[in-house]
């Protein structure tokens, strides 16, 4: 059986594409980094998953992910929606999560500047709040690195409380790191196939990149298990 194919979109300013491709390959995908200039609707037919990687698309000077969203919409129109409706998977990591949120593929809400007003690079504790094809092989609590200036998720009215109850908020921080409402770290759509998160699973594929050499006996890190989870879900 051929490996499931993941398409990683690369906008000017996307900068986590190489390590994301590497992580996907380790987890059993064939991965292709596609500069946005080469994107055309037909490309989606070749892939089982489309991935929006981390970085600063177009510099994120206007509003994080906004220009990337406009360009994607312009290039793909409804094709992305159809891709998901037909069973395709879409994942957004960090800036990719911001783009996915703008593309209306996830429950509504915004990722705004961290409460501290600063960029934050650290590791954060995470806990699963709902079942998700991206989280099936992970324990209830785990950790991943975060690195963002605009990772504070805000909803309208009772949105975020509802997301926690109805499981759209698939991933929560174990402690407040950026002021995110309800400590939301990751969201999914109602099919579970669209998933966005601020933490960086691609940076923790191997134990060697954990900050503590005594972390665990395992060879692989939690990020690997996130990609492996969705790999298994696609294979079924």
């Amino acid at each position, binding site marked *: 059986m051929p490996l499931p194919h993941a398409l990683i979109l690369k906008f000017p*300013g996307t900068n*986590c594409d190489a*390590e994301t491709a590497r992580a996907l390959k380790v987890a059993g995908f064939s991965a292709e980094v596609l500069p946005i200039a080469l994107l055309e609707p037909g490309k989606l037919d070749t892939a089982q998953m489309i991935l929006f990687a981390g970085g600063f698309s177009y510099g994120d000077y206007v509003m994080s992910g906004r220009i990337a969203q406009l360009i994607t919409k312009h290039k793909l129109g409804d094709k992305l929606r159809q891709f998901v409706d037909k069973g395709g998977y879409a994942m957004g990591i960090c800036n990719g999560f911001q783009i996915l949120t703008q593309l209306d593929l996830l429950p509504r809400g915004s990722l705004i500047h961290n409460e501290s007003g600063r960029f934050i*690079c650290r590791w954060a504790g995470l806990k699963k709040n709902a079942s998700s094809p991206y989280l099936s092989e992970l324990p209830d609590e785990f950790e991943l690195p975060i*690195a963002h200036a605009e990772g504070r998720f805000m909803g309208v009215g009772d949105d975020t409380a509802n997301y926690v109850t109805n499981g759209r908020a698939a991933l929560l921080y174990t402690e407040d790191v950026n002021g995110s409402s309800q400590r939301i770290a990751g969201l999914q759509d109602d099919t579970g196939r669209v998933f966005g998160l601020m933490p960086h699973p691609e940076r923790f594929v191997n134990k060697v990149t954990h900050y503590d*050499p005594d972390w665990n006996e395992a060879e692989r890190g939690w990020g690997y298990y996130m990609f492996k989870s969705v790999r298994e879900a696609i294979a079924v």
Partner: protein
Amino acid sequence: MSKAVFRHIPITPLSADELLDLSKKHKLSLSREDMLVIQAMFKEENREPTDVELEVIAQTWSEHCKHRIFGAKIEHTLDGKKEVVDGLFKTYIRNVTHRIMDKKPGFVLSAFVDNAGFVKVDDQTAICLKAETHNHPSAIEPYAGANTGLGGVIRDILGAGKGAKPIASLDVFCFGPPDTRQEDIKAKDVIHPLGIMRGVVRGVRDYGNRMGIPTTSGAIQFDDTYIYNPLVFCGTMGVIPIKDIEKEVKPGHLLIAAGGRTGKDGLKGATFSSVSLTTSSHEEDQTAVQIGNPIEEKKVADFILAARAQGLIQFVTDCGAGGFSSAAGEMLSTVGGEVWLENAPLKAPDLESWQVFISESQERMVIAVEESAMPELQKLADIYETEICKLGKADGTGILKVMHHGEVVCRLDNSKLHEAPRRHMTATWTTPKRGEDTYIPFEEVEVGNELLKMLMADFAIVSREPIIREYDHEVQGHTVLKPLAGASGDAPQDGSVIRVEGTQQYAALSVALLPEWGKTQPHLMGRACVDECVRQLIAMGANPERIAILDNFCMGNPDDHTELGALVETVKGMAITAEAYGAPFVSGKDSFYNYFKTDEGPISIPCTLLVSGFGVVEKKEHVVGASIRSTGSKLAIVGQASSGLAGSVFARMIVKNARDEVAFPNAPEFSEAEAFDAYERYYELVKRGVVLSAHDVSEGGLAVTLAEMGFSGKAGLHVDLSLVPTLDNTPVAEHLFGETPGRIVFEIDDKHAHLAEEAGFTIIGQTTDDGFLTITNQRQQLVHLPIKQLKPIWQTGLTEYY
């Protein structure tokens, strides 16, 4: 504008004084001697230079580009004895490196000839490192200055070989103390150290993070002398296939410019950085500061790396100081060729010819390619959304001919252009007298406890965490040893370790600077900076035989004999240690005129040396962090303590707080031969996999080292000073807080402790389960504090200010 705008400037009839006036009026930063040589050059050709030609010569001969002080003949007087230094660079840097290269063939693949020096990792892959300063721009516009400082050094790496991939950055700053009182700043328009610090950090953050290059190493020094002239060093490490290091421009190659457009930003940066700052700099020199756009650079970086992978690049270099004139000038320096300025895309239409040619607008690279590669290159430029243009062509004439809309605006013979007149300078240094050190008694444990707490809160020691967290140090997914680690990911390390893509090996990165010694002990500073940098790399697991270093100098006024004397002594010291350790210099840079003319007279920075280094860590099992791993381990020490507290953080703290007269005139001593022998024995233990953690002894001395190791949160530490090896009858203060170079404390499992002893190291204590840092002298307690109490003092020291 569709025609060339340039003019001829009559210089052949002028007197020497008039020539100097002309140089000043046009801000050429050329000396009387330089101007006379230029005059002779044009008299010989029987014509007057154009403004473009004068600007090109000024940029090419500027201190910034030509490093004329490091090439000068210096008459140096040390303690009354005269010596002649026939070029600092040649004598103490290049020759040392060449001798080391002869001893270690195959390690250094190139040094001093390219944008950065390369060392071999394995048969296919090399790494390179470059560090630059951006002091003057950061003083007058901290955010933009630091932003483009990092952007510039990243381009150096993109322009190293046929285009190296940047994989990690370092940043080192020297600022005035954050708590400086505004009324103590003696010149108007000088930005308060807090404004400088915040602007600089954010500038580095916004460039590095957007480029997706992890900023993994760094240091900050705070001292009053940096209030007027803050220092900003930015460095970047790159990786490249060995086959892509060699590059050459041949006749027939097209020169293409790629990346950003050319504008009026950054005019005369090279000459601006070669003079001192004054209050008017803050008003007049703003156009010398460039404006950064990291996404533009990210696009051109993606383009270059893709083009290099496809074999389309014959030669590449960045547009740094001097802009096109230095990039194209370098590429055409022997082969000669034509440049067509009208092809360069402009930000605004009203640029004069000289402005197009020397503008330092950011994010531009110049690449030599085969004409036949143009269609493929255009395709890649479209994919990565960057702009390229045909800037010129190499023709084999040896003449640099610059055209603008069909007119020749500059025609210079390259062989003459690169021969700047040699400078002759005078330097002097007097070694400070040894004397009686003030004795500090440690009879009560409270004295030791209080002094250690004060030290942990000193700006020199406190955690840089608020700043470190602003930088993405994990992007690219290869950061193995992070700047903060330990059980809770917040304990300090000796540097960082990065996996080298495409290999099974790792690169350690570290920096060392000790400017306090630059004031009184420059020779020791030179030696100790090299030692500390190399020692940190080895502590982290680098092979001592596979380390290379860079030297970056900053100083005040080189025309002041004593200031230049300090520089000469620093360089001499640095060379001794580098040669003893077999650590070649592969690149370096210098920055002069870091002094500020206040109404009360000039204020200079101390002679400041940054040594940054990279070393190969051969296996992931060799990576050693600085955080204690377990209770019940033994603690061993490499090296020995010696008397002398001069220049230490402890001495500075005591002097600042003392009510009575105190003095610490004596500096510590160490031997390079003994130190390096010990490092090699330590490395044998690393290779056996028995070193659990290790931390260098540097600022704050042994007590601070032990506390920092304890910040991992996994165990307490107990050390008995009576077991610590010493060179002389070392007093307690030196034992606890002295900064003798050459020392590493390491943790080793109890069952392997005999291996450390067999290797000649002394066990000085153990890790405990009581959570205390305990330092005794036999039975007498000198320090006894819960680590949980010490850590917040250290961890929050900067949070109030950043």
